[in-house]
């Protein structure tokens, strides 16, 4: 584990999971892998917290799960986004954009002086 990898920021795991699943349904292991791939191994996720997060999102009704054959031929639990999950993703993306925008503004302000 190189020190150049960040632990995932608090509270963003849910949003990232939703984002990954908005592309296509996936099982827990696949989600973890894809998170690492897409973020070019910069983001490091704690695999231990992945499953509680998935079950929490399922409990909230944002994800639904089904057992299906995976690419290795074994049955795996595939998660996919529900309609309210999609809505939630939009909400979270929007608020994330507002947050980062605000942070950027503050940085720009500092640079201008």
């Amino acid at each position, binding site marked *: 584990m190189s020190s150049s990898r960040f632990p995932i920021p608090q509270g963003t795991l849910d949003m990232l999971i939703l984002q990954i699943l908005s592309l296509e349904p996936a099982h827990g292991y696949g989600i973890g892998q894809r998170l690492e791939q897409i973020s070019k191994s910069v983001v490091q996720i704690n695999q*231990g917290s992945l499953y509680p997060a998935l079950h929490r999102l399922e409990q909230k009704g944002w994800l639904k799960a089904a057992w299906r054959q995976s690419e290795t031929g074994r049955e795996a639990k595939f998660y996919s986004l529900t309609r309210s999950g999609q809505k939630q993703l939009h909400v979270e993306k929007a608020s994330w954009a507002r947050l980062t925008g605000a942070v950027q503004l503050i940085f720009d302000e500092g640079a201008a002086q």
Partner: protein
Amino acid sequence: MKRMLNWFRRRKLESDLDRELQYHIDRRVNDLLHSGLLEPEARRRAALELGGATQIREEVRDIWLTRWLRDFVYDLRFSARSLLRSPSFTATAVLSLALGIGATTAIYSLVDQVVLRELPVAHPERLVLIDWKGEQLAETPLGSDNLMSYPICRDLQQQKRFFDGVFCRAATTINLSTGGDPKPTAAELVSGTYFSILGVSAAPGRLLTIDDDQTPGSSPVVVLSYDFWKNQLGSAPDIVGRKVLVNRYPMTVVGVAAPTFHGIDVGEIPSLWVPAVMSAQAIPGFNTMLDHRTRWVQILGQLRPDVSLAQVRAGLQPWFKSMLKEETRRTEFPKVDPGMLRRFLASTLEVTPAPQGHSVLRHSLSRPLWVLFGATAVLLALACLNVAGLFLARGSARQREVSTRLALGASRGRIGRQLLADSVLLAFTGGLLGVVMAPVAVRALIAFLPRDTAANGLQANVDTRMLLFAFLVSLAAGFLAGCVPALQAGRKSLESSLRERGGTPSGGLSLRRGIVTAQIAFTLILMVAAGLFIQTLHGLLAKGPGFETSSLISFGIQPALNGYSGAEETQLIRRISEGIRNSGSTQASAIASVQLLLGGAWSNSLTIQSGERFTTDHEVQMNAVTPGFFETLGTRIVAGRDFNEHDSLDVAVVNQSLPVSKNGQRVVIVNEAFVKRYFGGRSPLGARVAMGSAPDAKPDTEIIGVVQNISYRNVREQWEQAYFPIGTELSGSNFYVRFRGTPESAFRSIRAILRSADPTLPITYFRTLDEQIGRSLNTERMLSALSSSFGTLALLLSLVGLYGVMSFVVTQRRREIGIRLALGATRLSTIWLVLRDALAMIAAGTAIALPCVWALGRLVESQLYDVKPTDPVTILAATLVLCSTALGAALIPARRASAVNPTDALRFE
């Protein structure tokens, strides 16, 4: 909710999670193997990265069930197991809670149905009752409350600023024939706006509309109730368009109301609705529907959503005041004295919320029901306290278990929650049993109600509101019973309780003493209440109606409802009374125009001329009777004479003008109360009276006799009364028959006489006067029966509680008692030692209860008769019974204490 469901599929969830995690590890191991790691290392890395499967499982379980729910479910399971291990404790606790919860739920069910429940109509919260407050100067042909005239309803319908709609209604009984013999049937006369405002839909056909409510007599249509259609007509599919006879008058059925709609009065469920414009056909002899001075309907309105009650009250007054002024200018406005006129003009319009509709039953029953509800609440509290006491006793036995758990690291909150789970589980089991018992209890209660149960919609069904109430009450009972022991569990220091020796647990003794004291206080309150209500009932029964009720029958007929015209009706009634008089089983018989002991009366004020002229300061109760009425009832005429055949009159008795007899003389008989109030005991014979208080009333009716007081509206009341001779034109009659032999044979012969006079004429009622008294005292009977059974139950509960505590004390002080006895104490002094303890509790309980009795007394005062709520005899008797039985209960353990063998006691440990 979803989480609750998760509980039931937790096995599936667990195995799914296991599979999911296994899949993850296998894949990871596989990948790591591919990257060149050896299998054991790969497995180690995979498990490490995942961070412990057990921890993940725990975390996920918390998500499924939330922490506290999971813990609570485990607690409940543990409780169930430990409760099943001590079945006698569990049975006692569950039974006492079931009694408490069952009784409370049963009374609540009635309170809910009679007082609380909103009508199943559109926007019940916007319904208001509009009533006249003040002197209405109107006649009241149909007895009821909150009555108004029909024209006011039409005026109010124009007040569109405040109301989305206004309707009026009047309950009445008609003779309905749907093909066979006519039967008396409950009907509601309604304005055309009634159904549309209430948002009722039609099952088949249509409902009444404004078009059905235009000109008097123009709309011979009716709407049937769903129940009537179903039960009496077998849900006939061709019902719409069918002809029925309402009092022999043909009307067409245009539809059936929706099954959920039962009118707006829980005490009187109509079987059909008739347009108000058909009132002359529905109420024979009534033809003043459009008269401003005849009040016969209740008016209800639906407020506009944006209008507040205060706005309506204020907003309607200007219109109302100007209407009052206009009324006085009408030609038919009665001539009254200036005081009366002032009171008329000072009248206001009262607007009150009526989400439950209008009900006379509610008016008479809500107070007694609330009193009973309070009593059951006390009973339930007692049961809870008993269970709390049992818990404390059990808790002291479990002291070591609890201490051990504390020592092993359980938090005090956790232990307390465990005890709460115990009591909540018990309470819900009790609640379940209670709900099973409640409908039986409700059925028994409904039998006590003062009206015919057929006509009121009270039901003994379990419904969601009742279940919800039972659930909440159980929950509250569980917490109440459990919180005391739970708090107790958290209080004691750990070391001290572990250090205690097994034989001397002292858990919560002072608390248990407190509980017993509270129980004794509650019980005394209930017993005093029971004593008061029993005395009330006995007082009323002993007083009686003022006449001999045994071997007296009354029955009623209303020939006008069967299409008889005035002359035919008179003939029929004459024929029937002749038949009865000549029957062998009859001793005496007479007719009265108003039925006795039914709650209603014909009343009006009288102007009296005896030396000076004055008006009665309140209304006098009146009746019109045939000669021989007083003899039939067995009341004595104390002065003057009875009516005779010559007094019988040429015209029917109507309210405003008094009848003239054949020889041109008008006569009246008054009762002793009347003489006492208005003549100060002097002889009234020869004085003259006039009906009403108008200045132009002519006192030309001579008082010819004085009779003893008898009950009129109910047994309780003693009022001034005036009797007039019944007119030669007889209508709607109540017969009173003094019979020989058994009531059954008298019933049979009277029925035969009626059948031979007219086989199709329905009898409106037929009962012995004993029955009638029973009915009129139903509320009192209910209060005394229930309060005394509650009192007995409460006494039993507190005796058990006291006995439990005293037994506990004796066991605990065994050593001490042994030492005392060894040192030479007598057996008697030992008994006293224990009894003193009990006496302290009894005295404290009594001391708490007495001020409460005094304070609560005024709440029940209106229900009492001839006894003050602070009646010393009742209170003393209740206290004596309670103290003596309580001492008896304490004596058993006390005797056991005195029987302690000193050597055994000392060797015991």
